[in-house]
C-alpha cells in the first residue's frame, strides 16, 4: 500500500500515484482562525484548541486529529515565531484597531480575517540609510532549534511528506516594497535602480541567513521547501518580464541556489496572480513546484499550464478560493476538485489544495467536500472513482 509520503513523492516526480495527494495546514494552504472554528464545530471537534499560525494572516494550525480525518498526505515543519508570540497567543480583539509593528519595523493592522500594511519604515530612506537600518536577525525571530527533534521523528516514521516552511516566506521583492511602500518601490524599480538593488540585496542577506538557520536543523528531513514572493495581480504581472529579469530575478536565483546547496528538498515557489509569463524564469531559477495556481487570474487555465509546463513543473493548490469554495455548493466543489486533478494530476505532478488559505466565507461542508472528493477520485480509473465518490 502506498504511504502518504510515497504518494506525494511520486506525484512530485511526475509519476502517477494511486490517488492524487492532498495538502492542508501549510503556510498558504491552511484555514483562517474563523474558518477553523467553524470547521471544528461542524466536525464535532470543539475540544481541539485553536492555535494561531500567523497573527498577520489570522491563520490557524490544523490539529493532527483533523489532518487524519481528512487523510492529508503532508505535514508542515514550521518554526514558532518568537517576535509575535505575545499577540500570537490571542485572537485579534475586534474592538481594537489591531495595529502592530512586525520584526522589520513595518506597521500592520489586522482587521477581521486579514492584515493590512499601514506604515513603511524606509519610505523616506536614501541609499546611505540602508546600512544603518536595524535589519532583523532570523535567529531572534524564530525558534529553529526546537524543530529538529519533531522533524527527525516524523522523518524516521516515514509516514508523511514533510514540507518545510522557513518561518519567513523567503520573499525579497515583496519584503522590499513592504519596507519602502508599494508605490515608492515600484517607482524605484525605474527611477532609483541603485537603491532598489541595494534594498533587495539587504533583504536577500536576511533571507539567506534564514535559509541557513532553518536548513541546518531540518534540511535533511524535509521533502519540499517553500519560498514565496508575489509577482502578479489578477490580470497581469505587477512588473514587466524585463523589469523582473533585470531587478528581481538575480536575487531570487541566488536564494534558490543557496537553498539547493543546503537541501535536496524540492523547491516550492508561491506567487499569487497571473504568473504564467514568468514561469519559464522560475523554472530557470530552480523552482520545481508552483503554488498556488490562482485559477481565477488571467491566463491560469490549468489544462494549458499542464501542457506548457507540466514536464518540468509540479503544481500545488488550484482549487478555487475566489468563487467555487465560497459561493459554490458541495457538488460544485466536487466538480472543481475533479477538474483540477484531471487537468494537473494526470501522470502525477499535482498536490491538491485550496488556492489560498480558506477564509470564513467558505462553509465547512465545502471543505469536507473538497478533501472527500480528492481522496475518492482516482484519475487512473475515473469511472470507479465516480462510483466511490458517492460513498465516501
Amino acid at each position, binding site marked *: 500500500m502506498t504511504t502518504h509520503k510515497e504518494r506525494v513523492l511520486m506525484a512530485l516526480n511526475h509519476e502517477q500515484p494511486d490517488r492524487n495527494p492532498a495538502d492542508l495546514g501549510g503556510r498558504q494552504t491552511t484555514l483562517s482562525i474563523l474558518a477553523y472554528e467553524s470547521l471544528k464545530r461542524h466536525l464535532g471537534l470543539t475540544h481541539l484548541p485553536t492555535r494561531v499560525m500567523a497573527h498577520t494572516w489570522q491563520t490557524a494550525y490544523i490539529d493532527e486529529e483533523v489532518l487524519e480525518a481528512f487523510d492529508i498526505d503532508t505535514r508542515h515543519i514550521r518554526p514558532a515565531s518568537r517576535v509575535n508570540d505575545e499577540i500570537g497567543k490571542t485572537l485579534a480583539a475586534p474592538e481594537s484597531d489591531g495595529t502592530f509593528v512586525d520584526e522589520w519595523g513595518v506597521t500592520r493592522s489586522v482587521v477581521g*480575517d486579514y492584515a493590512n500594511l499601514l506604515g513603511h519604515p524606509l519610505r523616506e530612506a536614501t541609499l546611505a540609510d540602508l546600512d544603518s537600518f536595524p535589519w532583523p536577525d532570523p535567529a531572534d525571530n524564530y525558534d529553529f532549534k526546537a524543530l529538529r527533534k519533531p522533524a527527525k521523528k516524523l522523518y524516521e516514521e516515514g509516514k508523511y511528506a514533510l514540507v518545510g516552511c522557513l518561518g519567513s516566506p523567503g520573499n525579497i521583492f515583496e519584503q522590499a516594497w513592504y519596507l519602502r511602500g508599494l508605490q515608492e518601490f515600484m*517607482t524605484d524599480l*525605474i527611477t532609483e535602480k541603485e537603491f532598489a538593488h541595494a534594498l533587495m540585496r539587504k533583504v536577500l542577506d536576511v533571507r539567506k541567513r534564514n535559509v541557513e538557520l532553518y536548513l541546518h536543523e531540518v534540511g535533511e528531513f524535509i521533502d519540499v521547501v517553500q519560498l514565496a514572493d508575489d509577482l502578479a495581480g489578477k*490580470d497581469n*504581472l*505587477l512588473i*514587466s518580464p524585463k523589469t523582473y529579469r533585470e531587478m528581481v530575478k538575480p536575487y531570487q536565483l541566488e536564494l534558490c541556489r543557496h537553498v539547493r546547496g543546503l537541501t535536496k528538498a524540492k523547491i516550492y515557489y508561491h506567487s499569487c496572480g497571473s504568473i504564467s509569463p514568468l514561469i519559464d524564469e522560475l523554472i530557470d531559477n530552480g523552482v520545481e513546484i508552483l503554488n498556488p495556481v490562482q485559477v481565477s487570474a488571467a491566463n491560469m487555465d490549468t489544462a494549458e499550464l499542464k501542457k506548457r509546463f507540466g514536464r518540468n513543473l509540479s503544481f500545488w493548490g488550484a482549487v478555487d478560493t475566489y468563487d467555487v469554495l465560497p459561493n459554490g455548493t458541495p457538488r460544485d466543489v466536487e466538480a472543481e476538485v475533479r477538474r483540477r486533478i484531471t487537468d494537473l494530476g494526470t501522470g502525477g505532478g499535482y498536490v491538491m489544495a485550496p488556492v489560498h488559505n480558506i*477564509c470564513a466565507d467558505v462553509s465547512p461542508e465545502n471543505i469536507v467536500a473538497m478533501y472527500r472528493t480528492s481522496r475518492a477520485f482516482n484519475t487512473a480509473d475515473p469511472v470507479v472513482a465516480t462510483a466511490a465518490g458517492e460513498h465516501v
Partner: protein
Amino acid sequence: MLSEEDKDDLYDAIVEGNRDGVVTVARKAVDQGEDIEALLQQVMIPAMGHVGQLFSAGEIFVPEMLVAARAMQVGLDIIEPVLAASDHEPLGRVCIGSVKGDLHDIGKNLVVMMLKGAGFEVDDLGVDVPVEKFEAAVERGSKIICLSALLTTTKPQMRTVVEHFRGRNDVRIVIGGAVVTEDYARAIGADGFGEDAPGAVTAVRRCLEAMA
C-alpha cells in the same frame, strides 16, 4: 507659442514618465502664456489616456504607470495656478474610497492617479470609509462615487453603499477591485464597473455623460 515639437515632447515625456521633460515644457508653456486649457485637453490628458491604454493592453505595468502618473502630476502642479485663475471647469468631481472594513489602498490609489490624469477633481476619502463619509462627499459636490474592495469579506459593503444612494438622481456609483466583477456590479445595481484603473476612468466618464 509652443511648437508642435514641444507638444510632442510633453506627450512623450508623460507617457515615458520623464518628469524633467514634463517640467521643461510645462514651465515654458506657463511662461509664454500658452493656452493652458488647450494644452491640458489636447496633450496632457490624451497622453495619460494613452498610458491607460498601454496598461490595460498589458504593454506596460504598474511601475511604468506610476512613473507616468507622477510625471503628469508634476505637470498638473505647474499649470494648476493658471487653470485656477482662468474659467477652467474640471470634468467633474469624483469621490473615492475603499469600503468600510477594507484597509487596502493600492488599487484605489492607482484609480485616483488615473482620474486626476484624466482631468477629474478627486475627493480621496481613503480607506475603511463608512457610508456617511460618501454622503458628506456628495454634499461637497461629488457626482460620482468610486468604491474599492480587495476582500470577498468586505465586498458586501459595496451593496450597502449602493442601497443607501438608490433612487438618487444626483449621484452615480462605480465599483472595482480585485474581487469585484461586472456581474457583481450589475447584481447590486451599481452604475459602472472598472476592470482596472483605466477602466474605472472610462466608467466614470460614461456615468457623467449619462447624467448630463
